[in-house]
């Protein structure tokens, strides 16, 4: 094979090798990695499915495929799901709850609540954490000390207990839950952003930008931020999953989203009294929760692998 490379002593290569010219484009390499990463694929497919369900729920309802999740029909309460050996109601594939609401519809609409909580919390906490972390990492010194103290204080607070107390204080509603979780779950963002910014601060091109006299905001936004972006997305998926689990636990204990909203955590709460005879009432919402969180985690893990390999 013809090798046309002429390496200088400094390792600077003046010409491309034949292999490099014939190499597949970065895009097709990325595509290959994505399709070889089963964890990423699985996570992405399940996540897209759940998001599609959440978005299309009103359409399904309008088409008459699913019922109104709030529609109570006491005559048809506590119907069994289709696999049950006892008599089942054809109109309700996954049965009905204690006031006769269609379980399938509530499960589908429940995905809206979980995704809404996950996304909004992630946006709020991501913003707070990134601002704190990047500031601490970039400026260092006293600023870093103060931010570190704030992070440690936040970590010392028992999130679940304080979140419950806040819900008691401000009244339980979807907005309060989102705000409380958003104001609490920024710690991981701050810790990760801080350490990555510290590393990025000393990179040559950042130093060059500083030497050129670029303003601090310009350096942070244009030079530092692109570096932290890939880690930011990974942390975001972790925190989104975390927020979804916390909301479910809060709602399960009655300190979260309130009835009659179809939240998976709340459905578990309502199904608790039927656990002896209708275990499926607990199994189904929990399984949905598990699948959603699993999908987000696998998507995040896969995303890290796919993007890290590109940077390597």
């Amino acid at each position: 094979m013809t090798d046309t490379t002429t390496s200088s002593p400094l390792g600077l290569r003046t010409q491309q090798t034949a292999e490099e010219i014939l190499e597949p484009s970065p895009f097709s390499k990325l595509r290959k990695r994505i399709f070889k990463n089963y964890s990423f694929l699985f996570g992405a497919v399940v996540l897209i499915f759940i998001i599609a369900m959440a978005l299309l729920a009103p359409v399904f309802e309008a088409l008459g495929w699913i019922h109104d999740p709030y529609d109570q029909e006491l005559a048809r309460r506590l119907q069994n799901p289709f696999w049950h050996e006892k008599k089942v109601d054809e109109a309700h594939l996954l049965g009905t709850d204690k006031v006769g609401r269609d379980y399938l519809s509530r499960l589908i609409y429940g995905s809206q609540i979980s995704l809404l909580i996950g996304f909004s919390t992630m946006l709020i906490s991501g913003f707070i954490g990134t601002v704190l972390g990047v500031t601490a990492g970039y400026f260092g010194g006293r600023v870093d000390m103060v931010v570190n103290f704030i992070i440690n204080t936040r970590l010392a607070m028992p999130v679940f207990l304080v979140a419950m107390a806040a819900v008691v204080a401000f009244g339980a509603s979807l907005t309060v839950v989102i705000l409380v979780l958003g104001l609490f779950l920024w710690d991981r963002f701050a810790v990760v952003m801080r350490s990555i910014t510290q590393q990025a601060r000393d990179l040559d091109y950042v130093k060059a930008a500083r030497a050129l006299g670029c303003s601090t905001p310009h350096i942070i936004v244009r030079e530092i931020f692109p570096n932290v972006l890939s880690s930011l997305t990974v942390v975001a998926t972790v925190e989104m999953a975390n927020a979804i689990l916390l909301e479910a636990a809060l709602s399960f204990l009655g300190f979260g989203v309130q009835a009659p909203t179809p939240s998976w955590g709340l459905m578990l709460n309502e199904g608790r009294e039927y656990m002896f005879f209708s275990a499926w009432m607990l199994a189904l919402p929990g399984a949905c929760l598990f699948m959603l969180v699993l999908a987000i985690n696998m998507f995040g893990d896969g995303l890290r692998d796919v993007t890290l390999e590109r940077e390597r």
Partner: protein
Amino acid sequence: MLAYTLKRTVVAFLILVVVSALTFSLSHLSADPALTIGGEQASDEDIEAIRKLYGFDRPVYEQYFSWLGRALAGDFGESYHYKQPVVEMISERIGRTMLLGTLAILFALIVSIPLGTLAAMRPNSLLDRFALLIAVFGQALPTFWFALMMIIVLGVWWRWLPISGHDQWLNYVMPTIALGYYATPALMRLTRAGMIEVLGSDYIRTARAKGLPPFVVLFKHALRNAIIPVVALAAVWFGFMLGGSIVIETIFNLKGIGWLSYDALLRSDLPVVQAIVLIFASFYVVLTLAADLLNAYLDPRISVR
């Protein structure tokens, strides 16, 4: 080292002051505790009298400092609902929570260390992938749902274990598993990563070269070094677990302080909630402080920085 220890201790104390001030203002700014104490039948004069008696008419910061002063002396006030000293209510129940937390972290270590070690012995083997799969699934499993499913299967269908209470050791089996499994993925990953690093080091090669049996190399030489960060992480997780005990204790009706905090929140019993927040925060702060100091002792470079 002394200066470092002193500095870290002062910071830890400051953190606790800020945490307690935040929770105090959170609970006192929003709801009117006098209404809670008085109940529904209380007249306006009664409410006013209660406000004076408890000092709710004073500014919040004044109330906070008098609370803090008494808390430092070990007096957390009296429960609004049970009219019993908070310290008594907590000391009656804290043993159960500590027992549950200890059992749970032991369970997590007993599962994660062997699994992580086995996975590290043959990276990318079938066993390694299996361990990773368990970690990924474990992380996604909602604790309280896992607890409910265990109750249904082990308690209701098979009738192996009691589903509520705290009087016999069998009562602790399901809560321990439910609380402990959640820490296993993190601990296992750390064990695995640490073991892979240690197993590649020179002294392990030497130990192998001089013909020591593989399990001696593995357990006496490698694991001993890889386990230090795992134990430090386990200490931090123990602090997190106290927070997780709220849901688990409530589900299993295991009346520790996690259950107590749930009960107190339902009744807006602020002194109890306040005290438990401070206890949980103290545990976390003391455990991380201990872990940091241990690290600084093992690696003196840290304390100079």
